[in-house]
């Protein structure tokens, strides 16, 4: 049962010594309550309190960093079964699979693809995350040489995949210092795999298909001292994937079984339905996803889905304020003003594009609030619009000085005219009607 901030505060020394990095014990207590701090940071905690706190404040799914450097990323730290309860914190990493039987060109194609593929959406850079090298050859030298080649080409997070510790070790020779992920420890090989994980500081994936047997294996590895574990429940069909992942996540967030409180691993190559398993993994709690072939259409859809699902529902994506073009606008093209809430932006953009009319969109910063909310909250103001207008130098871009504003912004139309000196036309409330509005503009019905 999760402890509340005040209950936690009662267990803390209350010295406000700031050694944990927070200005007061209360602040630290609040962070602990939301699973965003580590009780170990408090040097004055008595052992009893530490135990109570440890089990009930640590993030239900263990946080850990994957890889090092610029392209490294965090996983874990999750506390929900549904994103609408609070949010999903860390998006899964996509790893392209590379068999060690591959030739030079294949190796460089894959490595470069992971490094360079980029989809820019709503002001965010969406990328693939790493390379998963699989021992097909069953030969340590071959495996090692492929890892070496990858290392020479790129600096990306890696997963080394083989059940044979010798093969894994061969790979670690070349990338061990970058703390890759290794797959996998099983009931048969876990002592050696754990040794390797400890030696090289790797994240260790535990492979076990029977959920009831996972805790035992986890505890063995924890006993040996490996801190960062990832679970592979060996799923190869959508039904098992959905159900096992849900059960594991549920037991973790309700703290029913702390030994299931680790991130999940998914290899879509095991599935008949490749793209389906990828989408399912994104929706249902996978933290590391290995993908064997990724056609561009699937890649785009998956990156977009991942971006959406892992957006904090309470902090909607915001667009960068400024001027945006639709089609090839010129000096006479209409200008539509609206807010920087991404949903509003894309909705209006979509309808403007379908209308076939070239025009401009002037986006103002309402901190992601929708038109209605921004007007009600007093965030969409005449001064804000005027500043944005000036910054975009709009007066020199279009010869008419007319601005079309959303229907719900009608209450500020008068003030806007006064502040900007531009003519203000009030457009429709529903973006879907923007096409009809443009028609009536052109036919002279609306002036």
């Amino acid at each position, binding site marked *: 049962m999760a402890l509340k901030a005040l209950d936690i505060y009662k267990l803390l020394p209350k010295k406000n010594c700031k050694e944990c990095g927070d200005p007061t014990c209360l602040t630290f207590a609040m962070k602990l309550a939301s699973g965003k701090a580590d009780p170990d940071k408090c040097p004055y905690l008595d052992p009893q309190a530490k135990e109570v706190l440890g089990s009930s404040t640590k993030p239900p799914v263990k946080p850990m960093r994957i890889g090092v450097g610029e392209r490294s990323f965090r996983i874990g730290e999750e506390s929900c079964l*549904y*994103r*609408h309860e609070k949010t999903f914190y860390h998006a899964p990493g996509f790893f392209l699979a590379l068999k060690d039987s591959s030739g030079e060109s294949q190796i460089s194609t894959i490595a470069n693809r992971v490094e360079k593929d980029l989809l820019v*959406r*709503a002001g965010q850079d969406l990328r693939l995350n790493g390379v998963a090298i699989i021992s097909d050859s069953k030969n340590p030298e071959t495996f090692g040489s492929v890892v070496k080649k990858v290392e020479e080409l790129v600096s990306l997070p890696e997963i080394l995949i083989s059940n044979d510790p010798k093969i894994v070790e061969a790979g670690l020779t070349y990338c061990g210092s970058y703390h890759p992920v290794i797959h996998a420890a099983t009931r048969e090989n876990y002592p050696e795999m754990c040794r390797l994980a400890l030696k090289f500081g790797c994240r260790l994936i535990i492979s076990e298909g029977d*959920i009831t047997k996972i805790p035992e294996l986890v505890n063995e590895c924890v006993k040996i001292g490996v801190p960062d574990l990832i679970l592979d429940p060996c799923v190869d*069909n*959508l*039904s*098992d994937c*959905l*159900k*096992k992942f*849900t*059960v*594991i996540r*549920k*037991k973790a967030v309700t703290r*029913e079984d702390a030994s299931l409180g680790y991130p999940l691993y998914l290899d879509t190559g095991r599935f*008949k*339905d490749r*793209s*389906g398993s990828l*989408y*399912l993994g994104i*929706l*249902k709690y996978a933290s590391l996803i290995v993908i064997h072939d990724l*056609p*561009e*259409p*699937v890649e*785009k*859809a*998956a990156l*977009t*889905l991942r*971006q*959406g*699902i892992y*957006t904090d*529902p309470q902090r909607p994506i915001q667009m960068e304020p400024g001027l945006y073009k639709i089609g090839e606008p010129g000096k006479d093209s209409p200008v539509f003003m609206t807010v920087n809430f991404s*949903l509003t932006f*894309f*909705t209006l*953009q*979509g309808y403007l*594009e*379908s209308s076939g009319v070239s025009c401009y969109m002037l986006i103002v910063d309402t901190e992601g609030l929708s038109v209605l909310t921004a007007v009600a909250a007093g965030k969409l103001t005449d001064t804000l619009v005027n500043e944005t207008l000036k910054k975009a130098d709009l007066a020199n871009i279009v010869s008419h000085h007319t601005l079309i504003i959303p229907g719900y912004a009608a209450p500020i139309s008068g003030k806007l005219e006064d502040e900007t000196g531009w003519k203000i036309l009030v457009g429709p409330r529903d973006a879907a009607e923007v096409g009809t509005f443009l028609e009536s503009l052109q036919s002279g019905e609306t002036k």
Partner: protein
Amino acid sequence: MAEKGTYEWSSRVGVVKIGATKSEGGTRGKSYTIGGSSNIPFFSEKNPPRIALEICDDIAFWPGLLKDNLPDITADVSEWAKKGEMEWGADLIRVYLTSTKKKHFSDFPGIKKVIDEILSGTTLPLIIEGSDSPEIDSDVFLNCGEAGSGERLLLGTAEADRYRSVAAAAIAYNHAVIAQSPIDINLAKQLNILLRETGMPDNSIIIDSYTGALGYGFEYSYSTIERIRYAALKGDDDLAMPIISSAPDTLGVREVRESPPETKYETAIQWEFGTALSSLVAGASIVCVRLPETIKLLKTAIIDLSSPSVEDI
């Protein structure tokens, strides 16, 4: 139940029947029971989710992608419906009467003709989407309701300020209704209450919480569907109806439009598949798509997701 990793729920999603076979008073080859779940999606579903193929009676009003790739089929609405059933494996046909979008549309008897054609073109249960403009609602829905009398259609779409005519047609001719709200669980609830007040029984309402395409607000829709399913299982009778999901803008999104020609169609398929599959996982009981390839992908996925797992109760 707890050790199996699932939940204890106090209630379930209601059921709605769509389609009527001969013994049920219609001419459909089969009829479906939609909904009825007593757990989170695919954890022992009583009635499998269904896939609807979306077609329209005037292709000029839809994104060009379809016309470009299936020019002959999309010109004849009845052939299109037949293909959907015989070759592409759809469970339902959803017909958009896009011809009503024409300015000053008034050919209401024509609507009956179109529906009759489709009824003879396919034996699948039908979803009929009426008009786009409120002014002609009354006449359009009257004709839809009458034309489909006895067939237990699913009629679309009721909205908060536009529900009387579609509700009237449903009550008068015994059809079910799609109740659509703009991605807001409270508005979905309110609309159901308003529909009940006209006399619509709960077992004839299917919720559409509006689905944005991937990257265009899809995650809002996803969470709303999850929340509606959760509320139904927790005993909220005003939300215990099955859910339908369709992302109508999908084929026109920028990612599809601006793809290189060689991958454009495939991108459209993946966009549709990703959206529909995710909606199913969130809790939708009917998903609607326009591309034949998507239907195939979804069918396989549904069979897989519905197959028993060691984690089922």
